[in-house]
């Protein structure tokens, strides 16, 4: 009887995928990136915001999605900080506050030491309630927030004192890994408030949100590939970000990512071919 690839021990498949990721990490195999029109559209939209604009950056994810979403959070934060855009972080996930504090510590405070908390960026922290909380942010943010994420009275803060609702922001950028996430921000927030929204999300989430593009959503950064494209656009527009002091995490991940994809494609093709050949021999 002819041998078929599907009979292969699954541990060998795991080992092959593991090696296809490990070897490019060790020896730095990279492929060139080409920005897609959608990523370019999101980039240009953020880039068109004038200095002093208010960007609401919603980080609705947990440590499990960090490898995919941290790079786009960092890239958008760098972009906004360079432009002098005021960044407001918020999360609807209980696991979100450490994500916000990480980007503040590792990107804003490290790479932009001149920027100050409360003047150039602020965190509104975590609020539970999922879509209900988003609806309250859209209508009257002060009903939900008495302090910012670090315990400062919301009326006393330079950046938070003037906030009323979602219409107080010039743009929303949602980075999400599930529920509540981009979909809920569109349904209960930006659609009713009429505020433009762009989004970055895990690759798994991207197909579910494509129907909202382009009328309800300016664009989607889907997974690590789109984050790498955004990083490339950022480096092209602002060459100082090519310095190793500004890590291009998504670009670094794309080498192993592409090799793993090639391995998986090879296994799928080989599996189908061997099954086809085995079927033909069986019929004879």
């Amino acid at each position: 009887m002819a041998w078929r690839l599907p009979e292969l021990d699954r541990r060998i498949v795991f080992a092959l995928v593991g090696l296809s990721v490990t070897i490019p990490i060790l020896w730095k195999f990279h492929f060139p990136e080409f920005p897609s029109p959608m990523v370019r559209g999101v980039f240009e939209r953020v880039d068109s915001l004038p200095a002093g604009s208010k960007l609401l950056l919603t980080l609705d994810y947990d440590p499990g999605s960090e490898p995919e979403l941290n790079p786009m959070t960092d890239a958008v934060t760098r972009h906004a900080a360079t432009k002098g855009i005021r960044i407001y972080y918020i999360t609807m996930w209980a696991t979100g506050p450490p994500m916000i504090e990480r980007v503040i510590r590792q990107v804003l405070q490290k790479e932009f030491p001149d920027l100050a908390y409360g003047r150039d960026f602020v965190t509104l922290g975590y609020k539970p309630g999922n879509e209900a909380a988003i609806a309250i942010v859209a209508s009257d943010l002060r009903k939900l927030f008495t302090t910012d994420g670090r315990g400062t009275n919301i009326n006393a803060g330079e950046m938070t004192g003037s906030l009323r609702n979602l219409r107080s922001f010039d743009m929303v950028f949602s980075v999400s890994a599930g529920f509540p996430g981009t979909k809920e921000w569109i349904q209960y927030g930006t659609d009713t408030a009429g505020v433009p929204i762009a989004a970055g999300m895990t690759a798994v989430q991207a197909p579910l949100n494509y129907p909202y593009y382009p009328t309800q959503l300016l664009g989607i950064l889907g997974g690590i590939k789109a984050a790498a494209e955004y990083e490339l656009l950022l480096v092209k527009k602002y060459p100082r970000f090519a310095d190793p002091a500004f890590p291009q995490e998504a670009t670094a991940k794309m080498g192993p990512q592409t090799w793993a994809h090639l391995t998986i494609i090879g296994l799928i093709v080989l599996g189908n071919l061997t099954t086809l050949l085995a079927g033909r021999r069986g019929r004879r």
Partner: protein
Amino acid sequence: MGAAPASGSNGATGGGSVNRKAILWAVLMGAGGLWLVWRVATGAMPAPWGLEGLGLWVAALLTLAVFSFLLGDNPVYKFAEHLFVGVSAAYWMVTNIWAVLVPNLFGKLFPEWISTHLLPGLRENGRAPETDWFYLVPAVFGILLLWRLSPKWPWMSRWALAFIIGITAGLRAIGFVASDFIGQIHGTIVSLAVWSDTGSFLPGASFNGLITLVGVLAGLCYFYFSKEQTGLFGRVSRLGVWTLMITFGAGFGYTVMGRVALLVGRLQFLLIDWLRIASP
């Protein structure tokens, strides 16, 4: 009679195989451990002490513990899984106490005490806000929810649950009708001939519009079950199935990309941050 020796022979071979496997694993683990000790001793990788070093080692060993599931269920994986569940439960409880109960409930009902002892940020110009007695309503509803734990009066929690279900259903109905139903119909009404600002025809954008229109109509035909799917209607439904299959394929591709990205993230952590055998 003949079966007994065969069975015994198989059993002996199986036992030998298990022993050889155990010895092989013990040797591999021992060699790996010695290699780690040597790297720590030579300063090639961080030592497992100090807050940062200990955190790094715990994270790395827990990652390996979870990866061990690829070889089969085992006690090390079970330990990591249970630890994750326990830590998550505690994290959620503490976060919700400080992000919800303290500022949004106790801070409204006892603003003076809370702003003095727990949350100074509640004070504005040195003064605590007025007590908002309306928040007694959510406080009572919250306590009612806990009655679910009572063996005698668990039904009392249903009042609070009814309130939650009612609010959620109403909110979701509005969200879906406005954004998904009307918004999506609006999003589907696209021009089939797209022109640029300078007046030139854009074939790519026009083709996208055509795919959207045909895909949506064919998909809707597939889900229309009041007419037998034969003839022209059947062929359009078939096109709808193809559209759905392409969507599922794209979704599967994206899922693979997402999962591989997570694997890359973990291996980068192990190879770069922990073992230090690769550069960032």
